[in-house]
């Protein structure tokens, strides 16, 4: 499995855990995934959140998830495997969008991005822009730390509260 796929899987699992999703099933033709988390708490993720995640999740997430499920099938429940796979990224801080709009990762087209994975950012540093109706909203890091991943792509439509970056706070 590629590192990117593992990262994508971790992100998916983090999302499911964060929203206390007890069970997660995907069935896309020859691809089937089932993840279970224990103990099962009341699921609080809204359907729209989940639908959005599925819509935006690259195919590789699902494939990676499938691979993880297969790998885990011989050694116990998928839930246990999911928990251990998520550990390295557990506790990552997510910078979320304060508004609905269009995401820009650089100050202007063609310019270098504000930040890249691995960069250290200080709290208050501008790391992106969300535009809504020509209102340019600078997104600041709300913690200091290392940028682990940009979770959205340049020009992408962003919903209120959508995670934009994950940061390992220092």
């Amino acid at each position, binding site marked *: 499995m590629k590192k990117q796929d593992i990262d994508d899987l971790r992100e998916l699992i983090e999302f499911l855990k964060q929203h206390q999703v007890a069970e997660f099933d995907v069935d896309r033709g020859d691809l089937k995934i089932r993840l279970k988390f224990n103990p099962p708490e009341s699921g609080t993720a809204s359907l729209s959140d989940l639908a959005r995640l599925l819509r935006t999740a690259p195919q590789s997430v699902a494939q990676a998830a499938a691979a993880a499920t297969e790998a885990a099938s011989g050694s116990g429940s998928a839930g246990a495997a999911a928990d251990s796979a998520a550990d390295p990224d557990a506790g990552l801080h997510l910078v979320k969008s304060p508004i609905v709009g269009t995401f820009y990762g650089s100050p202007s087209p063609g310019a270098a991005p504000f930040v890249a994975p691995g960069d250290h950012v200080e709290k208050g540093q501008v790391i992106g822009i969300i535009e809504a109706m*020509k*209102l*340019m909203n600078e997104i600041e890091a709300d913690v200091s730390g290392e940028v682990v991943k940009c979770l959205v792509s340049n020009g992408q439509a962003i919903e209120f509260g959508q995670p934009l970056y994950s940061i390992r706070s220092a």
Partner: protein
Amino acid sequence: MNADKSLDLASIRDAFPERRIVYYDTVDSTMTAAAGLEPGSVVIAGEQTAGQGRHGHSWHSEAGNGLYVSLVLPPSPVLTLALGLATVEAVAQTTGVACDLRWPNDLMIGPRKVAGILVQLVDGRAIAGIGINVNHREFSAELAGEATSLRLAAGGRDFALTELVIELLHAIERVVPEDQETILRLFTQSSSYAAGRRVTVALPDGVIEGTTVGLDAAGFLIVRKDDGTDTLILAGGVRAARS
């Protein structure tokens, strides 16, 4: 008509004694100059050497002929639409020139843009930049197809910048505090782009073409493609489709 191109700052300060009014003959950008000033502050420049447009676009700023103003405001929903309405109102009052609004807030005379507005949200404050082409006599070949000035639209009359600034600030004070529903209604009445207009929109994954069918409750533009599907336009990039 008073054709004095210089700004009478004393008159502007008299009209708005509670506002801090800063003037530069030349500045890189009024947006940069306004950053960090207290809400209510107004920055005016005779010329900008690096006028800012939307996301990296530049704004052509000519000495003495344009009005370049940045204002520090508390943020509010649909602020950018309200600023467009206020600018249309101020231009009509002081020059008699009627402008259309291209969503979200470009002032248009026919197919050409005469004023542009950009807002940056920084540290919980909205910095609104308004650029109006007032007394330009001509534009470069590159810009002539898409830009015009109030002077060109009014058959060669020059307009006083001082009066326009004062009316602009008054109009902003009137329109911006209106509730969201009122601003959306006024916008729909004032803009030929709000509904029934054939447009193209540049989106990250390509250009779409369709017909505008109104604004949603948040003020975003709805474009209906010919296959009947609706796309909600969040940013800008709306252009009249070539018929």
